[in-house]
């Protein structure tokens, strides 16, 4: 489900089934902008695809946005806690930004897809989305 009025309605009706929060992490930098924009775009591609396939159990939240100079651990922690209190048993942060990706993030390396052809793009996105989905399924089976 997405963060839209329609999907939130659906969420309220099926709350007990939706137990996973997916949060894309979007870096903003004033230098090397293009690389950060690529990362952001890539993260959003992947998370959208995961949401499409796991619509019924995953809520895709609006991105966690930060400046690259920022110390984000505390804020990430805060988000995770709030979401957990709201009833999401699994909270997943997805990022393409290697500098912040520790073990609490799902890391999807951004590839320069700007000039790649459509079929190749789809393949890469599908593969990485599958990795994320595998990680989610592993989380689900672990705690069930």
């Amino acid at each position, binding site marked *: 489900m997405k963060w839209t009025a329609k999907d939130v309605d659906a969420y309220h009706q099926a709350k007990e*089934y939706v137990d996973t929060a997916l949060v894309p992490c979007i870096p903003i930098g004033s230098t090397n902008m293009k690389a950060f924009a690529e990362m952001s775009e890539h993260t959003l591609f992947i998370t959208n695809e995961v949401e*499409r*396939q*796991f*619509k*019924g*159990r995953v809520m895709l939240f609006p991105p966690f946005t930060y400046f690259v100079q920022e110390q984000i651990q505390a804020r990430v922690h805060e988000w995770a806690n709030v979401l957990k209190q709201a009833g999401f048993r699994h909270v997943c942060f997805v990022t393409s930004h290697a500098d912040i990706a520790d073990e609490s993030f799902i890391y999807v390396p951004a590839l320069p897809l700007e000039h790649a052809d459509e079929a190749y793009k789809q393949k890469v996105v599908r593969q990485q989305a599958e990795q994320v989905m595998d990680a989610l399924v592993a989380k689900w089976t672990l705690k069930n």
Partner: protein
Amino acid sequence: MSEKKHRVSRRQFLNYTLTGVGGFMAAGILSPMVRFALDPILKEEAGQDMVAVAQVKDITTEPQRFDFKVKVKDAWYESEEPRSAWVFKDENGDIVALSPICKHLGCTVNWNGEKSNPNRFFCPCHYGLYEKDGTNVPNTPPPAPLDRYEYEVKDGTLYLGKAKPRGEA
């Protein structure tokens, strides 16, 4: 006297021209309005086009996943949305194209997704199961069978249209 009868007075002449010109102007203003009012009735129902998905020779009795894209119009915003279909031939050799959207909450189902339930469609979100023909397995979350795509075969190519609930397609 015929000449006198046909004489047009200045007043009449002005009357005629004014009504003529006025009529044109009124028609010019009113006709687009009428057209706008009638527009929703005249518009064809936005039927989704059939999309080429696969070659018939590639379709086997084992369900295979084919991905394709459809044009979706959401208000003024037009976009291409990815769709998938599980396509196979049943015992009679008829093509069956199932929508992979789980009828429970809309996740994507997989063929043979779980080892303990071979030859079934499996939904990883809440462990829903469907038989090969799309029928939901009782005592799993899905409340209905998988939707079926309308299909058409032209020159060896499979075209898919809208996904419809079973019973309608």
